[in-house]
């Protein structure tokens, strides 16, 4: 199945390239051309004495005693963790100025950077941030804004199509079974419950309606957003339920209410149900890439830098990735031992072909991040409003 998947995504990648003309992934094209009006926040020049503690906002599973305690022993910095449930919550918390670090996803990072809430990162102070960072996690928006680096990659994952193989007996090659009104599984579909899910509709439209001219699912003008919303409204007719809570998604699949829909590799594993399979269909998908970002108001920058360096090592970065269930940013982890290699294989850590067609979550903003200057793109507020209308 793996090879088939690779073949599919590779073919899809090529065809998408031909269709879209120049929709090369950010890594090659370099979204470094993007220029934003970013507040001038100074970067830490050199490391000083550790402050004794560091306050971190993180996703559940990113900061655990298993590796935080060792860090405290080595550096004297006590780690205070606060778990956040959503990107919006992370942004709100970072604005309070009470925290030093955040494990921001792509849909939060632009907002944090442009809001002046995070500071540029001095890569010289993070020796572990080296050549081992997988290529697909470099050159993302978080490290190419106006030539500055703002994030230290942690890990990434794709939003896969999960299906109950007892009902959906053939591996789906297309997302059409969750989008089209005549889907054989109408009424048993689940969809992700967040405005950012509009990008999933855009990814599908990029492939099936190239005439809309969508180059990047996070850069939608009014017409393109409308097309995506229409597709989502059509999907609403066949959706059994939307999920935002991972537990709800798992019970929905295991309880038989839904048989196909958006998922994460880790949720498929957590369901611990052999019937549940996952695939990355030909259209590609959305996904997420997380990175440590340091607060512009940090009162413990030295401990924060030490933490970013510590967690960038192959061992610790891999431990986080295995704990959370994602592809690690540090590729060297995959060569550490058999267990690590198996994890990397399962989550496609080194498989750039797999991630070639994955569009990492990015905050939609008025400035079109696909480089268009003749139109105004729709902002995340527009998406939020649109999202509420989809569910009527």
């Amino acid at each position, binding site marked *: 199945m793996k090879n088939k998947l690779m073949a599919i995504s590779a073919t899809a990648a090529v065809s998408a390239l031909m269709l879209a003309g120049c929709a090369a992934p950010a890594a090659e094209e370099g979204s470094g051309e993007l220029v934003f009006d970013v507040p001038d926040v100074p970067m830490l020049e050199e490391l000083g004495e550790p402050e004794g503690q560091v306050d971190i906002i993180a996703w559940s599973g990113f900061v655990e005693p298993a590796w935080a305690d060792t860090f405290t022993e080595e550096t004297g910095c006590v780690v205070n963790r606060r778990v956040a449930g959503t990107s919006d919550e992370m942004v709100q918390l970072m604005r309070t100025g009470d925290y030093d670090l955040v494990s921001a996803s792509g849909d939060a990072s632009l907002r944090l950077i442009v809001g002046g809430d995070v500071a540029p990162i001095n890569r010289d102070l993070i020796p572990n941030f080296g050549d081992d960072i997988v290529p697909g996690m470099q050159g993302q928006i978080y490290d190419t804004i106006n030539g500055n680096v703002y994030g230290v990659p942690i890990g990434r994952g794709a939003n896969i199509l999960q299906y109950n193989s007892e009902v959906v007996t053939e591996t789906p090659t297309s997302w059409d079974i969750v989008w089209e009104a005549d889907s054989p599984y109408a009424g048993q579909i689940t969809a992700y419950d967040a*405005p950012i899910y509009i990008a999933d509709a855009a990814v599908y439209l990029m492939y099936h309606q190239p005439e809309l001219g969508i180059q990047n699912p996070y850069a939608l003008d009014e017409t393109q957003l409308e097309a995506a919303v229409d597709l989502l409204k059509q999907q609403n007719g066949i959706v059994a*339920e939307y999920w935002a809570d991972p537990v709800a998604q798992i019970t929905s699949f295991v309880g038989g209410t839904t048989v196909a829909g958006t998922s994460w590799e880790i949720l498929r594993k957590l369901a611990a149900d052999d019937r549940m399979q996952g695939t990355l269909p030909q259209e590609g998908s959305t996904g997420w890439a997380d990175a440590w970002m340091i607060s512009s108001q940090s009162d413990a920058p030295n401990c924060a830098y030490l933490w970013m360096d510590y967690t960038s090592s192959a061992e610790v970065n891999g431990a986080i990735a295995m704990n959370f269930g994602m592809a690690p940013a540090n590729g060297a982890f995959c060569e550490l031992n058999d267990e690590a290699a198996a994890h990397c294989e399962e989550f496609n850590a080194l498989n750039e072909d797999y991630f070639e067609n994955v569009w990492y979550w990015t905050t939609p903003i008025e400035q079109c991040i696909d480089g268009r200057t003749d139109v105004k793109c729709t902002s995340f507020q527009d998406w939020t409003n649109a999202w509420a209308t989809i*569910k009527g």
Partner: protein
Amino acid sequence: MTAIATPPTAPSSAPAAAKSKPLSTLLYRHRWMRLVGLLSLPLTWLIGLYIVSLALLLVTAFWFIDPFTSKVIPGFTLDNFVLVFSEPAYVTTALRTLGIALAVTLLSAAFAIPLGIFMAKLASPWLRAVLAVAITLPLWAGYLVKILAMRITFTEEGFFNWVMAPFGITGPGFSLLTVVLTLTYLWFPYMALPVYTAIRQIPVNLFDASADLGARGATTIRTVVLPLLWPALLAGSVFTFSLSLGDYIVARFVGGANAQMIGSIIASNINLNPPVAAAFSVIPIAFVVIYLVVTRRTGALERM
């Protein structure tokens, strides 16, 4: 408390007493001091924390938002209200939420009245105690636990479908109906307890008199019990109605694809677009105020 403890007959002209209890005397002489002592703490709570914070939130309904950073910018615009009232999906959601709240209230009342009559007038003391515990039992469990329990009950392969399968009945799955059922399950005690208390207070001889005059059970309930019960029903309904109106977690967990409530929209906007969330929160406030005004005219609030 000091003010209450002061004997009202304390002789203000007696210097000896004034020496022994200077504070009491001071409070006795100055009425405003007594009031300040009594009310400063609750009023600080009510005005300072509750009303001011609510007002601050409502003010943002007239403010702008930076589309990039989601930061709120003070100013004055009615756009947020225009959006809330012009978007058909939002209007539908508001009406749906109102419908859900009314349905939950009616369903709770329909369960509470016969149960209350049975418990107060027919059940043995032992059974009454058991039922009283059974009614309040749901209050012991966590809110989310109860919702998840309902969720598991109503999944496709869940308990409900399993039990009903022999009869050829399929459950409602996750739908609007399930939302109403779950909310009724959550808020029923708040209706059942005032109704039960009210029925207990109805003298038994009223039932006897009604029967002596030739009324059957149903007639007695309609002409004797219900009028006496009305204030308690309204009091209970204030709880079931306003609690249902503000809920959104239930819709998220057992609502399926088309059960969005006002709270869902507020929740999805509160971080990204607080002004729209604030504008939207005016709707449930308006509903509850109207409801309270209507209820107040019946005198039900004095019985709460």
